[in-house]
């Protein structure tokens, strides 16, 4: 991948800024639009890593935790206590901890792969992956709401109580759009947009610095490539923050939507 990028960046016609085509990286089986791509491989690797790490870390649990056990417990505690219990409520949050914990760890590890060397591809920078995750949450919170109140009751519960009669149809349409379109679309697009934009920024700084250093042929630009690489390093650290934050926010919003379907009053 990097070889192709470097060749694209250092062509005769000058520097070409990285764009969305750089994220299409088929590895094998390249027949048209169907291919086993790099993010698919990264996703499979991340799932295997999560399974192995969690099963090894929880095999021998001790009263005085070691480093690995402490890290696992801290992650689990974050999702269980400060996301699930605080938002869904202490009555029936425990059912949803596995779903939220899987979401959190999968998204976190896949996001972190954006800056871990040799992987260096945030899976969620392809829209299909966050879209499927958002669809899972979408199905879960609608299913919970319909199971609890029935279809008519669920649709009726979208309306906030105490509205004057003439405004009810208008608000109902707005709430319908919120629940069925805006929520899943923003849930997917937020994760996708953050990962895509962040990785694009890193690509821009690194390939731009490389172009200025090796292909520009002028001393001024070669000197300027040093702060460009510096910005690349700074943005990598910033990406670490964003990657963690996005995994947290996705799980938080998923818990919030589930809590909304379980709540007694709207």
């Amino acid at each position, binding site marked *: 991948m990097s070889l192709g990028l470097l060749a694209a960046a250092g062509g005769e016609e000058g520097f070409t800024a990285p*764009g*969305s085509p750089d994220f299409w990286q088929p590895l094998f089986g390249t027949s048209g639009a169907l291919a086993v791509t790099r993010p698919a491989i990264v996703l499979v690797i991340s799932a295997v890593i999560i399974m192995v790490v969690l099963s090894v870390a929880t095999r021998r649990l001790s009263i005085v935790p070691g480093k690995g056990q402490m890290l696992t417990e801290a992650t689990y505690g974050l999702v269980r206590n*400060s996301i699930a219990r*605080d*938002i869904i409520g202490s009555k029936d949050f425990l059912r949803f901890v596995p779903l939220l914990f899987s979401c959190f760890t999968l998204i976190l590890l896949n996001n972190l792969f954006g800056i871990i060397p040799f992987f260096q591809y945030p899976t969620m920078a392809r829209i299909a992956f966050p879209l499927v995750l958002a669809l899972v949450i979408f199905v879960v919170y609608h299913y919970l709401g319909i199971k609890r109140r029935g279809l008519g009751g669920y649709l009726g519960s979208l309306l906030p109580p105490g509205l004057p009669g003439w405004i009810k149809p208008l608000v109902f349409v707005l709430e319908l759009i919120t629940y069925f379109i805006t929520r899943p679309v*923003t849930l997917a*697009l*937020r994760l*996708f*947009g*953050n990962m*895509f*934009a962040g990785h694009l920024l890193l690509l821009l700084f690194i390939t731009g610095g490389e172009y200025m250093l090796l292909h520009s042929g002028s001393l001024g630009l070669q000197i300027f490539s040093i702060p460009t690489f510096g910005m690349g390093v700074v943005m990598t650290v910033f990406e670490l923050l964003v990657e963690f*934050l996005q995994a*947290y*926010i996705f799980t*938080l*919003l998923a818990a*919030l939507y589930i809590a909304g379907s379980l709540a007694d009053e709207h």
Partner: protein
Amino acid sequence: MEGNIAILGYGLSAIGPGIGVGLIFAAYINGVARQPEARGMLQTIAFLGFALTEALAIFGLALAFVFR
């Protein structure tokens, strides 16, 4: 000079969320300064508001790459 005017659209769409995110975190800092023990609850609300506000800028970014 050549380029894509959709990118300018992204710049415009980032103004509002930029102001909004600033307001949210200003309110969060104010709240924690006045009542430090409410930090955990305020943090959840602040990040929630941050995520909802930021969505507008993300829409702008996605559309900038869609209409190119």
